């Protein structure tokens, strides 16, 4: 049960070593820098040091309580992440699969819209553009 924020890459396998002992169901979500247009070189992710760790821990604890998780983990990177790099992961462990799935989905909705990260797209031409928040992410959060 932990949340971490750092710029270094993470290793999903290492994160899952010993994770969720005693659980019947483990779900992971990994977000990867994706280039849809061929123009993207990297994402730059800014965050709010101090608040970020606090917010992620709060959301993890809320998910654990709501979905009776036996374990959870959140890892989120910041800084410059080239296309293909892992951005973040959540892992949830529960007795049953629906709880594990729902908790991972819930955490993603909170991370998308309520964790203090801001993404900027950096093109191959050097141009930088802040990524707009999506109304659909806000709507997704309203489900819970």
């Amino acid at each position, binding site marked *: 049960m932990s949340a971490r924020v750092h710029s270094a890459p993470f290793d999903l396998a290492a994160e899952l070593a010993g994770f969720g002992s005693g659980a019947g169901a483990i779900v992971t979500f990994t*977000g990867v820098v994706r280039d849809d247009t061929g123009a993207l070189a990297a994402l730059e992710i*800014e965050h*709010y040091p*101090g*608040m970020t760790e*606090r*917010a992620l821990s709060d959301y993890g604890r809320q998910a654990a309580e709501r979905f009776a998780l036996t374990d959870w983990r959140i890892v*989120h990177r910041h800084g410059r992440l080239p296309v293909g790099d892992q*951005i*973040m992961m959540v892992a949830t462990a529960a007795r049953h699969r629906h709880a594990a799935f729902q908790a991972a989905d819930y955490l*993603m909705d909170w*991370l*998308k*819209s*309520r*964790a*203090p*990260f*801001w*993404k*900027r797209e950096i093109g191959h031409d050097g141009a930088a553009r*802040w*990524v*707009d*928040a999506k109304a659909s992410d*806000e709507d997704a959060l309203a489900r819970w």
Partner: protein
Amino acid sequence: MTLDVLYFAWLRERIGQPRERVETAATTVRDLIADLAARDDWHAAAFSDLSAIRCAVDQQLADLDSPLADAREVAFFPPMTGG
């Protein structure tokens, strides 16, 4: 009251600094914004559309009408794009 005011993402860019120390008599976030917007054109431009602004008081997400009370640190930023 003395506050540390922090800016992130394009708010930081428009205002031209990541943080500043502010003396204010504001009692709510909204009052504080009015104080800040009156400082100069850059502040005024950054705060021109409040629907695009989110905030945190002492590192907890807050509304524009949240009281400042004994706050030490207030942050302004655009809607978050994590995950």
